[in-house]
């Protein structure tokens, strides 16, 4: 197999080639870097590329491989969402605020990947501070969808998803606060998982809304996601919400029979608002699960419509608090002109943050301010419990919930320029999952007018392995996950 063919393979196959010493970490890294360079101007999937740093990591992985025993994953190249601190790498979170911020330490996720010998190809583009559903809110410019360069890749982890879909990396990290892994995975035609809240440490992951943020992964297959989950999951005392559990590795569960598993389908998610094309694809994929022996049951989400309003109170409230750390004193952008300390804060933040971040900080400050806290913030948290209760009731009747990821396929760039709030409404199927802290994934399920559609699978707390096994079974019987966009001009196929 030529290197160029190998670069199109999934992570499991690339790992096999590394283990059999058919390819070196350096060859792989260089191969992907060449591809990235050829399409970066069109796709803009990366914020920072540093060939020297990448080659250094590849050389270390090859050195690691020379010694036995070594992880089968040593030398696998990966795109890192620019929200994870990685020592020595520019870590911008897509913001002018952190334009010059070189992280002085590694995030937990980065540390875990480094231990295995993963090689960083570059820092993937994203919506500023992970706020957005289209990747148009990046200070470093929008990312394009590899299936259609006039469309968005989804967000906020748009660069990560576009990179994997375009064959620029076999895997990428992401974060998901309201759908930021599942939605771009769906819109770029790849697989992505958002683990249970508390499953993966948030240490070193730049915070947006701490009770919702969760790190996860993108790859081409559910099997690859299982391998990656087993690397990044686990207890870390540096994150007080990281939970200490001893679960079987996700990979060990793959291949178990899914016959008899009950798949719950929320009726409210297939009504008005879901495009007919996406609905047809998702219904067909649920039929496929039924053919594989799953029992399909209807479930009822009484609070479904309340998730977006609750999220757009809670997430901005947490963001306004989290982002107060960017004050122009200890790190990040500092304004040139100021006459006192207050003005230093105000101008540094006014200049450093983009419009969507300002919007959410303002909203958050408002709902937390005196006189509004009870009416908005506490009420949103009560509704949040009702939404979590909806899921709890549903999981008495089913083992996995299946439904759409987003109401449409990827929309054209600039669709919501005049009305950014309208874009919020498209997150209606992903946000409830974050509010309840559940694990969920998106896998390719078909196409609507040439654009990929994702199937979302949601599980009870800590049941990532069950979801991955079901997704794996689906991928053993379908080939949607093998579909690739036409190579972009300049990219070798």
């Amino acid at each position, binding site marked *: 197999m030529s290197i160029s063919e190998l670069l199109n393979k999934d992570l499991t196959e690339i790992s096999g080639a590394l283990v059999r010493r058919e390819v070196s970490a350096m060859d792989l890294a260089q191969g992907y870097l060449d591809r990235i360079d050829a399409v970066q101007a069109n796709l803009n999937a990366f914020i920072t590329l540093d060939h020297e740093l990448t080659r250094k990591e590849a050389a270390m992985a090859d050195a690691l491989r020379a010694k036995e025993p070594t992880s089968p994953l040593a030398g696998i190249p990966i795109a890192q969402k620019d929200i994870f601190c990685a020592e020595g790498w520019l870590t911008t979170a897509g913001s002018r605020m952190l334009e010059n*911020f070189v992280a*002085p*330490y590694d995030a937990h996720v980065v540390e875990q990947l480094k231990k295995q010998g993963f090689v960083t190809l570059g820092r993937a583009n994203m919506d500023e501070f992970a706020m957005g559903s289209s990747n148009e809110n990046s200070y470093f410019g929008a990312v394009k969808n590899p299936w259609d360069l006039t469309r968005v890749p989804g967000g906020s982890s748009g660069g990560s998803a576009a990179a994997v879909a375009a064959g620029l990396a076999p895997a990428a990290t992401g974060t998901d606060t309201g759908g930021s892994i599942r939605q771009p995975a769906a819109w770029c035609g790849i697989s992505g998982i958002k683990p249970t*809240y*508390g499953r993966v440490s948030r240490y070193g992951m730049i915070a947006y809304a701490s*009770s*919702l943020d969760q790190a996860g992964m993108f790859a081409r297959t559910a099997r690859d996601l299982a391998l990656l989950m087993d690397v990044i999951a686990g*207890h870390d*005392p*540096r994150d*007080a*919400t990281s*939970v200490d559990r001893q679960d079987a590795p996700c990979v060990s569960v793959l291949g178990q029979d899914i016959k008899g598993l009950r798949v719950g389908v929320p009726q409210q998610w297939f009504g008005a608002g879901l495009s007919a094309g996406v609905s047809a694809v998702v219904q067909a994929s649920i039929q496929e699960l039924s053919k594989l022996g799953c029992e399909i049951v209807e479930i009822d989400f009484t*609070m479904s419509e*309340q998730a977006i*309003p*609750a999220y*757009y*109170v809670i997430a*901005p409230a947490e963001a306004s608090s989290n982002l*107060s750390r960017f004050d*122009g004193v*200890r790190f*990040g952008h*500092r304004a040139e002109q100021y*006459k*006192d*300390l*207050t003005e*230093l*804060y*105000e*101008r540094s*933040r*006014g*200049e450093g*943050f983009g*419009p969507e971040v*300002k*919007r959410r*900080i*303002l*909203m958050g*400050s*408002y709902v937390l*301010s005196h006189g509004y806290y009870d009416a*908005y913030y506490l*009420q949103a*948290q*009560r*509704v*949040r*419990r*009702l939404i*979590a209760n909806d899921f709890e009731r549903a999981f008495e009747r089913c083992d996995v919930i299946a439904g759409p990821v987003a109401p449409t396929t990827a929309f054209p760039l600039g669709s919501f320029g005049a009305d*950014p*709030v309208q874009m*919020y409404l498209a997150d209606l199927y992903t946000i409830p999952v974050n*509010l309840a*802290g559940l694990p969920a994934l998106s896998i390719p399920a078909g196409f609507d007018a040439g654009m990929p559609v994702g199937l979302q699978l949601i599980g009870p707390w800590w049941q990532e392995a069950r979801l991955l096994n079901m997704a794996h079974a689906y991928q053993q019987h379908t080939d949607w996950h093998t579909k690739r966009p036409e190579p972009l001009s300049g990219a070798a196929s």
Partner: protein
Amino acid sequence: MSFSDEDVRRVARLSRLALAPEEVSGFRQDLSKILDLAAKLQAIDTKNIEPLAHPGATAVFLRPDVVTESNRREAFQSVAPQVERGLYLVPRVVE
């Protein structure tokens, strides 16, 4: 519920966020829309429902109260806008 320009300026002050005059009316419209969205919550009966602050609330982990980090002041200050002799510089706050 609608925002006034003065409401926007008030929350901007609370947020320590300088807004250009031309930004204010856009944010007024956007925040009014978000608030309309949030207003839907008011119709929900949440009597006797405990607020859910975060999903893992039952399992918050406490670590032992011991020093685990080494002194890396230089590394951390290398990313600061202005430092001198190990101190962060800001405009004079005490006359």
